């Protein structure tokens, strides 16, 4: 059971939206809360907030954190094989940043009363989601470049929007993460260009990776607005400030020309620039596939979860040892991870 704490009390996170709170006092607080959001103020952890706002944020921030952690795997797989020392150093630094972003996001979610351990348990139990894109495989080195440009590019489009959101700790975490992500895209672009302008074999490798990652990149923004049950609430409370479809369009407008300029193609016969609207027209991803992968039936869901569970199981004795030491007062604090964080 996923739980969180409010004023020291452990409360289960409801699977469904909580029943609407009622009464004149609640209505007044809600009106004041929504007025603050309308004025562009940030909501802070100790401020009053509707339970549904808290629930939506926990859902989104924990999914986001899990995406960073699971997202370490498809690229991390290529650290051992990176083809130059420079690329190896950069890739290690990049995957490290993803871990760091996970850490920041878990902390932001913790301000809402849930613990990192509870979130991780939910992930490993298969109850929490993470971005669908990390359930796709990375069979070649070029996939690292494709992720670096397309997936990180899509993530930044999304995160720049989230940085404008109403919840202070999440918006601030996003700001910092976007700053670091701009380095990732630069490196992704650099690796991408090296292959796109390389030998015919390298170009082909890059093209195949683009073919694999184009639609997952479009999926990163989530289901189309017509099917997104959360969007209206998220927009009203400025947890999000743009819809999934708006963000998807922004991404295509920015990245499709970039890929084409490098002489590669995009696997979409309908892709073309529309001078009337100033936007690119494109085909939607296969949403049936999207829902299948979200529900656990993607090419790598089982592999990703197995890797996380294995790391968790194999590390159990270490965490127990840290907790035992901390409990004896050797390091102070009740939790081993804080003890080691200071090293």
């Amino acid at each position, binding site marked *: 059971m996923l739980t969180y704490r409010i004023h020291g009390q452990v409360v289960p996170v409801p699977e469904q939206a909580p029943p609407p709170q009622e009464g004149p006092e609640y209505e007044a607080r809600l009106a004041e809360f929504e007025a603050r959001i309308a004025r562009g103020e940030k909501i802070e952890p100790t401020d009053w907030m509707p339970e549904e706002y808290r629930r939506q944020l926990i859902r989104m921030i924990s999914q986001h954190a899990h995406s960073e952690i699971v997202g370490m795997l498809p690229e991390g797989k290529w650290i051992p094989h990176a083809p130059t020392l420079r690329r190896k150093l950069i890739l290690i630094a990049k995957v490290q940043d993803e871990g760091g972003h996970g850490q920041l996001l878990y902390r932001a979610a913790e301000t809402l009363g849930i613990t990192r351990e509870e979130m991780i348990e939910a992930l490993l139990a298969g109850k929490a989601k993470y971005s669908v894109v990390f359930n796709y495989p990375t069979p070649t080195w070029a996939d690292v470049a494709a992720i670096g440009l397309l997936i990180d590019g899509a993530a930044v489009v999304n995160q720049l929007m989230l940085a404008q959101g109403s919840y202070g700790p999440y918006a601030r975490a996003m700001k910092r993460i976007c700053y670091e992500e701009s380095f990732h895209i630069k490196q992704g672009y650099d690796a991408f260009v090296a292959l796109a302008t390389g030998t015919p074999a390298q170009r082909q490798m890059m093209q195949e990776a683009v073919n694999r990652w184009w639609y997952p990149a479009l999926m990163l923004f989530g289901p189309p607005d017509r099917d997104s049950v959360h969007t209206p609430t998220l927009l009203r409370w400025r947890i999000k400030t743009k819809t999934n479809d708006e963000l998807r369009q922004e991404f295509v407008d920015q990245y499709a020309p970039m890929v084409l300029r490098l002489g590669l193609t995009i696997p979409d016969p309908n892709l073309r620039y529309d001078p009337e609207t100033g936007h690119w027209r494109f085909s939607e991803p296969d949403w049936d596939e999207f829902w299948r992968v979200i529900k656990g039936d993607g090419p790598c869901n089982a592999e990703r979860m197995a890797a996380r569970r294995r790391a968790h199981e194999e590390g159990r004795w270490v965490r127990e040892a840290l907790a*035992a030491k901390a409990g004896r007062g050797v390091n102070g604090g009740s939790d081993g991870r804080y003890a080691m964080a200071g090293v």
Partner: protein
Amino acid sequence: MASPFPKPNETVALPDPLREAVGELLLAMADDEVLLGHRDSEWVGHAPILEADIAMASIAQDEIGHAVLWYSLLQELGWPDPDRMAYFRDPPEFRNATLVELPKGDWAFTIVRQFLFDFAEKVRLEALMASAWAPLAEAAAKVRREETYHLMHSRAWVLRLGDATEESHRRMQAALEQAWPHALGLFEPTPGESLRVAEGIQPPEAELRARWEAEVRPILEAASLRVPEAEPVYGGRHGRHTEHLDALLADFQMVARSGLGETW
């Protein structure tokens, strides 16, 4: 982290046979660092706690960065460039101690190996800071500064895991028994050692080993770990390796040697 791609010093020329003798030392140091960095990086995404993923990524970057620095000095002495050295040599051409090529094992083995290596590097670098060959002395001083965090990190982990729980003690003791003989191999005499010692490039390896033992034994004892009686595993510094290096290099070099391109 400082840039791993230093501007080469202007004057590094050395007359033969001293050039070759110094090259052997640099090669041993560079190969140790690059392979340990590779092993450390295998934890990124798979460590026991997120903080450990992040720490291992930092350490891996530092070790590989230091390898680049030593390879760059070698290049100045006439060897091929760092990527050529790391990606286009076969196992018998590597001069690393066998310690760093062993698989990453469990977290206890990784910590014990890192601890033994970090302190070996510490005593070596501190000795080399007084080297008669200025480029080496300068580089050693720079690397030594960057190693301070590693020393704190691995020492803290050894002290925490050595006697925290029955299981952690058992795993750490087993790791020490496995790693110790290979760690002694870090001080395997290498070709040209007597010449390097005579020219004031470095102190004898036996002396470094004694200094190292004086540092690590008290910490291991404080962690309730018993140092095994064991003969050193030698051979690495002469290109004789375990089969683990074959597997490691197959992983490390597979894209670079795929023949699909020259630049990446």
